[in-house]
């Protein structure tokens, strides 16, 4: 039996096409993935991401526990600030990537991938022994909406007296949205400005509908997981289970900026320090296909006549109108400009390594 978010009936009413995603029955598209993608780049889109997991970590030892299980430096967070991080195993492999929110010095909120909720919870619980911290899986207690796009602030501002321009990137605030008590965070997974809005499941339909109605005249539409995936790919955001997993390290995944080796000990630190010292053998790069054929997840990759791996994420990019993707390549073939081949249905198609992100708001690469 697939799990459903509190907005399931709302999606059905909107005519969404539903698919199984990590055990959840989720909207993959409402109108068309391309139209939804473009709406987020040019106006705004609203996503239901209530399948994501939320954990609360409370107590005097909450900070110490999170310092031990995550790679970024949680001690740098102020109240209401958020940070992107990874949890690594003893070999430095990525158990999951997550957001860590500091509510106050004894209360943190973690947002983890839907596919990893049980695994992450068990892992953190194991590590919590000896820490004065209480860990709770509060996922069922939260609905999570993502309002993304250049007009997101204008739309949300229509439903609250809270001055949203006072919430900087990667900060959150408790905000009353049309009478509903929410936590509003300026974060997202699309490469655009926007917010992620936490509220009680019972209130989620009200917030969702009010946003869609208020935002309609500004171009806001409901968006599904298909657009979410192409948007995050253009923005160069890694997807756990595709672009990283327990067999790849955050350093290989290009996430060295959230690995703080100098913050004190944490799980995976020794392995990551060793890898940093010895140098990487492979790393995750972005590429553009120099052909009309899109490259998809899993397609084989050929360097110097031999297969070196498979594409981790690949798709046509609706805004950039190119076929793009990510792949792990040997470091001596990972420099921007390097040519390699992708096997598309038996045919070798040329591709070129490029800098990520592919898309950055306010500019686009060529």
């Amino acid at each position: 039996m697939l799990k459903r978010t509190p907005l399931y009936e709302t999606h059905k009413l909107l005519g969404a096409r539903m698919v199984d995603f990590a055990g959840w029955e989720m909207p993959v598209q409402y109108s068309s993935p391309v139209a939804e993608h473009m709406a987020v780049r040019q106006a705004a889109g609203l996503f239901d991401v209530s399948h994501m997991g939320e954990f609360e970590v409370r107590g005097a030892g909450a900070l110490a526990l999170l310092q031990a299980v995550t790679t970024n430096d949680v001690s740098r967070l102020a109240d209401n600030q958020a940070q992107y991080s990874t949890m690594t195993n003893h070999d430095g492999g990525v158990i999951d990537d997550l957001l860590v929110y500091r509510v106050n010095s004894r209360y943190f909120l973690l947002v983890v991938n839907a596919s990893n909720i049980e695994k992450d919870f068990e892992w953190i619980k194991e590590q919590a022994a000896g820490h004065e911290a209480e860990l709770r899986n509060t996922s069922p207690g939260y609905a999570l909406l993502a309002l993304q796009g250049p007009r997101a602030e204008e739309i949300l501002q229509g439903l609250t007296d809270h001055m949203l321009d006072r919430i900087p990137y990667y900060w959150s605030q408790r905000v009353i949205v049309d009478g509903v008590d929410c936590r509003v965070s300026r974060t997202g997974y699309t490469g655009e400005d926007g917010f992620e809005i936490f509220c009680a499941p019972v209130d989620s339909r009200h917030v969702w509908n009010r946003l869609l109605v208020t935002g309609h005249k500004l171009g806001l539409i409901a968006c599904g997981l298909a657009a979410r995936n192409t948007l995050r790919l253009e923005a160069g955001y890694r997807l756990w289970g595709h672009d990283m997993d327990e067999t790849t390290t955050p350093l290989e995944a290009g996430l060295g900026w959230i690995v703080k080796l100098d913050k004190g000990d944490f799980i995976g630190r020794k392995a990551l320090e060793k890898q940093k010292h010895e140098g990487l053998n492979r790393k995750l790069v972005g590429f553009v296909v120099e052909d009309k054929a899109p490259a998809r997840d899993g397609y084989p990759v050929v360097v110097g006549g031999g297969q070196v791996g498979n594409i981790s994420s690949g798709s046509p990019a609706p805004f950039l109108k190119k076929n793009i993707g990510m792949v792990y390549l040997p470091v001596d073939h990972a420099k921007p400009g390097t040519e390699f081949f992708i096997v598309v249905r038996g045919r070798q198609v040329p591709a070129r390594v490029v800098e990520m992100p592919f898309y950055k708001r306010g500019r686009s690469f060529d």
Partner: protein
Amino acid sequence: MANTPEDLSYTKDHEWVRVKGDAATVGITDHAQKQLGDVVYVELPKIGDRFEATEPFGSVESVKAVSDIYIPVTGTVMEVNESLNDSPEQVNEDPYGDGWMIVVRMENPAQVDGLLSGAEYEDYIKEETSE
């Protein structure tokens, strides 16, 4: 509601066939293009390639997926719609016209009799979508 011209023949894999003598023009149905969404790439065979009925002869790709296209009748490819290379959106805009894919010379035109009529195909997609 999908558009299904009565003068064509159809497959359960959502291809259509327009017969003229022993030549059969093949494309995908309006229902199929709607299910796929925005087509961004169509891969087609070369002139002279031969396929047995029900074999895949190419693929059509939307942003989110690749789908094989199957040949409804055995034959050799005589013509390929090269314009889909630059304008794959024709498959969405005009699936029974400019969105055609290939023309094959049929080896056994009687195979067409085994395909679905427009009415039969409409019944089939109704059943399929109500499942």
